[in-house]
């Protein structure tokens, strides 16, 4: 589904990704963990070209994103992204947040888009909030709306950039539950997270990133219970 070959990314002279090779299969949930500054968010943001790639190749479902001829808007419309700070549009109701892209990008009518949005709101447990504005929602509710908004485009892949890091602890559970449901339905997901519990329980594979490379990867059991690399061991001992 996703293939990344020798991905390099510079910010100015600073090399933040130093040759990433990774593969994500269809319906697989891959969790990316690692210390801050390890490049894991940058890596994720390269996957829908929110960050310009310096060199290397990214392929998603047959589209080579790094090919300059690729229609990046078309690719992005099939890759959902959920942000740490939700990034809901504050001037639009929940329903309008969800229907904007289906109407403007996919060309659905307002009625069609709203009809499609209702079950998504149901799915994230917020069917009563369709007409609410983001400012009246809690952080957890905002993030669930953001997930519904991404799902409205019917994406092939979902990218999550620390989706629970900005939430109060008691609100994390609801968001993780929605993500677990998604995983069960077979959504292909790449999740940058600090929620080791989630990575253990839901992740099919875990990538440990440090200093701009993937230091170690394997099943959650391999990574959490018998980490091979010394950096992985020291990172896990600090947070577990």
């Amino acid at each position, binding site marked *: 589904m996703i293939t990344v070959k020798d991905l390099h990314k510079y910010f100015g002279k600073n090399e933040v990704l130093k040759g990433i090779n990774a593969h994500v299969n269809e319906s697989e949930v891959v969790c990316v963990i690692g210390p801050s500054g390890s490049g894991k968010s940058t890596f994720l943001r390269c996957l829908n070209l*929110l960050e310009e790639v310096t060199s290397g190749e990214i392929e998603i479902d047959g589209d080579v994103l790094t090919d300059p001829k690729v229609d990046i*808007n078309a690719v*992005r*419309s099939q890759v959902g*992204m959920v*942000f740490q*700070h939700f990034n*809901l549009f504050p001037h639009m109701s929940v329903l309008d947040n969800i229907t*904007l892209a289906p109407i403007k*990008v996919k060309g659905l009518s307002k009625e069609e888009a709203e009809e499609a949005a209702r079950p998504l709101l149901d799915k994230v447990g917020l069917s009563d909030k369709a007409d609410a504005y983001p400012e009246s929602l809690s952080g957890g509710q905002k993030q669930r709306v953001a997930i519904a908004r991404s799902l409205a485009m019917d994406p092939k892949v979902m990218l999550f950039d620390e989706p629970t890091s900005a939430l109060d602890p008691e609100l994390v559970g609801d968001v993780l539950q929605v993500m677990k449901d998604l995983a069960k339905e077979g959504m292909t997901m790449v999740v940058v997270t600090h929620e080791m519990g989630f990575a253990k329980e839901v992740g099919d594979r875990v990538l440990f990133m440090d200093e701009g490379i993937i230091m170690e990867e394997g099943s959650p059991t391999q990574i959490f219970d018998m980490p091979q690399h010394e950096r992985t061991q020291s990172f896990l001992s600090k947070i577990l």
Partner: protein
Amino acid sequence: MIEAIQESHYYNSLPFLLKGLRWTAFITFAGLFIGFILGAIFGLGRLSKSKIISTLSTVYVEVVRGTPMLAQILFIYAGLTKGIIGFNIDAVTASITAIAINAGAYIAEIVRGAVYSIEKGQHEAGRAMGLTQRQTMRYIIWPQAFKRMIPPLGNQFVISLKDTSLLSVIAIPEIVYQGKQYYNITYSPFQTLVMVCLLYLVITIPTSLYLRRLERKLDV
């Protein structure tokens, strides 16, 4: 008492000044209308990725902000038209142009600031869903930025309104020009100029009060 007022210059200058108010209002609105369009173009121009466009926009803004309005008016009226193009444009056209170009530069800064103040994540969320740059601007950034522009735009309205008084030097019969004509004939500068100032305040003070209320309501 009433007779005394009716015979005073406070009272008698008023019809002249009100005639001037029509010109003041007309030139302010026409100038600001064009100025807003210029401001939107050059404000977004300053944010453009294209080096040429952003440099051009910056030059425009800095030249206008760094020179006196009076010099700009004379430059457009006399310097450009008589000096370069070789024919006269009428004083009204020159006036509207001067207000538009001057306000446009300040509005460009307002537009740039407002757009720049919208969190980067808003733009990213739009692009990540597959919206084009243009759609993201139109449906996500601009509506939010516009709300933040309203208070400083109101402020600019007050400034441009007062700036029209400078147009008296090219004989636009706006409020100050009318006042001057009146007191030159009647030798009543004090009374006339009190009325001139009151006439401006009648517009500017309610505007400012309204803006302050609006600012609180919009919570910006």
